[in-house]
């Protein structure tokens, strides 16, 4: 269940902080998504529309346009692989293969234990240490298939330990 009050408070907070009494939809959605870990439940999206006084259809339009937002629950660890050229020419293809194999999922899927979601991202601005992935807010560079496997194993151990 979505905690109505928490959402409403979040949105009101954002309204207060904004410099102008204008549109703050995207900021609000970011915060809601953080609140739920990594996705926005449909119910919460409806509340945002109500609170900000914008049509629900507009909220959906925005939600579906930006790849960072998801209305499907994502795993505890969202693994984003950079799929741009600097990472590609330095071995990114093997990194992607390794991730898909180790996790047993394809892009935009979540592992059945709910731990990992695999996504693509464009350049993370760390091409100096390509190939690169991002797990939630952390970056990992200079990757090799071996390092990727170790990383996933250690996250898995941590994830299940809780």
């Amino acid at each position, binding site marked *: 269940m979505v905690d109505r009050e928490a959402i409403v408070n979040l949105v009101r907070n954002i309204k207060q902080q904004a410099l102008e009494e204008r549109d703050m939809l*995207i900021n609000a959605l970011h915060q809601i998504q953080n609140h739920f870990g990594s996705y926005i439940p449909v119910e919460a999206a409806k509340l945002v529309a109500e609170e900000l006084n914008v049509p629900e259809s507009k909220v959906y339009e925005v939600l579906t346009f930006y790849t*960072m937002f998801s209305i499907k629950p994502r795993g505890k660890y969202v693994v984003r692989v950079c799929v741009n050229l*600097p990472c590609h020419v330095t071995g990114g293809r093997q990194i992607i293969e390794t991730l898909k194999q180790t996790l047993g999922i394809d892009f935009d899927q979540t592992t059945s234990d709910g731990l990992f979601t695999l996504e693509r991202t464009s350049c993370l601005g760390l*091409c100096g240490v390509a190939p690169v992935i991002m797990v939630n807010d952390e970056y990992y560079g200079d990757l090799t298939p071996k390092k990727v496997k170790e990383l996933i194993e250690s996250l898995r151990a941590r994830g299940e330990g809780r």
Partner: protein
Amino acid sequence: MPLTTSTVLICAGGACISSGEASVKEALKKEIRKYGLDEVVRVVETGCMGACSLGPIIVIYPDGVFYQKLTPRAAEKIVQEHLLKGRIVQEYLYKMPTGEVVPEAMDKLPFFAKQVKIATRNVGYIDPSNIEEYIARDGYFALNKVLTQMSPEQVIEEIKRSGLRGRGGAGFPTGLKWELTRKAKGDRKYIVCNADEGDPGAFMDRSILEGDPHTVLEAMVIAGYAIGAHQGYIYVRAEYPLAIERLQIAIAQAKEFGFLGENILGSEFGFDIEIRIGAGAFVCGEETALIASIEGKRGQPRVKPPYPAQSGVWGCPTVINNVETFACVPPIIIKGADWFRSIGTPTSPGTKVFALAGKITNTGLVEVPMGITIKELLYEIGGGSSTGKKIKAVQTGGPSGGCIPSEYFDTPVDYESLQKLGAIMGSGGMIVMDEDDCMVDVARFFLEFTVDESCGKCTPCREGTRQMLKILEKITSGEGSEKDLIELETLGNIIKDTSLCGLGQTAPNPVLSTLRYYRHEYEAHVREKRCPALRCKALVRYVIDPSKCVGCTACARVCPVNAISGELRKVHTIDNDVCVRCGSCIEVCRFGAISKVSP
């Protein structure tokens, strides 16, 4: 109070963080405490020093000794030897490709010696979360000068005379943009900083935001004063959480010090800045899309004119500039337009920050005068190829740009010269490729990117790029024909001419430029079904040379799909119908018996 006798700068840029900066810093601090040096040694975390492939990095002042590729263990040793006994620790100094240890001082290293730092003058030298360090390096002096000695018109005149051009891609003269916005009708105006940096292979904006956020704030206030705006937005990609965090800290400090808010520095002028966070859409870097996104809409471009100078945020006149463009403003105000013009070329004054990525030894960021040749940039500063193979091409300008073959590496880097070659300056990403990279694959790669990122508003971009991608996929899988090459050119030109925004108008460039310079590679794919670079999976086979194979079984054990068969001490063979071309077997074979062939 004891004087600080040494300052240790530790790079806390994104790349160094990812290579273990935190544990090196911990070890460093712990060891310094252990020897009671905390009173005389200061440890400062800076933004990206530029030499990202060498991280984690520290530089010890007053001598400027540069230590690289550090581990916690190395940090301890440096404290014990260098800080305690004044002995330089040879093993962590930078070594030339020849193995020779070069002068230990940072500014003598070939990578740094040729650079001229304007936009990144503070990045890597100061603690970005401490406003006093920025002020100590002339920070907010330009703002003070502007507010106390210059009229808005004089500010605009100075920027115009400096010849500063937008660093976000198109190279539009910044002073002119400010003037147009100042003159536009409307009592509310806005300043927007474009920090959406989406070009693959470009990370200069990220490093400025992370390493010197105040310079962007200062420039935005100056721009606000010049055009008569009181409100600014910084639009940052959500993929840059560290930049967002450092900007938030900087904004709070600037407010506290009276550089933001009302009555700035005691003047009549007031200005405020708010951060807006993107949500993973490349097209939002385009200015009209970015403005739509600030307004909380889907980030889709609209037809220009009207330009943002007339109608930007909430329909009000708006200046939108790139991060690096802004970072050049305070030095121009302090040192003057003539100084700026004395660097670079007549049509492209000043410096440009380039991001070196791909198969180059010194990946990272460099700031050099415009007009430097590609060769100097890639070999003297970049250290040449990182793979031992010949550099074949450099891609500039990301998905809107083109590939420049090595025959043209004497070309000076400026807006016009690159354009003539069918590439563009773009935001300054330089992706280096060697003989193992297939140019058809590269073109396909960029098209994949644009197909993904096209906002879908107009048909030529949405459908046309998809069509081009299909053809390229056909070619790379060995099913293309000569006709396809002509079709690619025709489609490319139509998309360029009929798309609504810059994304579509430039999307065919990577294909057209590779077709221009590497037609023979395309032809090998369509005529002989051969990939000369051995890159396109469908066109290569893995074979074992029976005269070299000793039957050690290493390859068979590593193959993920059991494509390799053979008994111990007998020659092995690969079933190419099963092989998924992962390349693992080549890596493990110690006898060099496995190779790729095409066809």
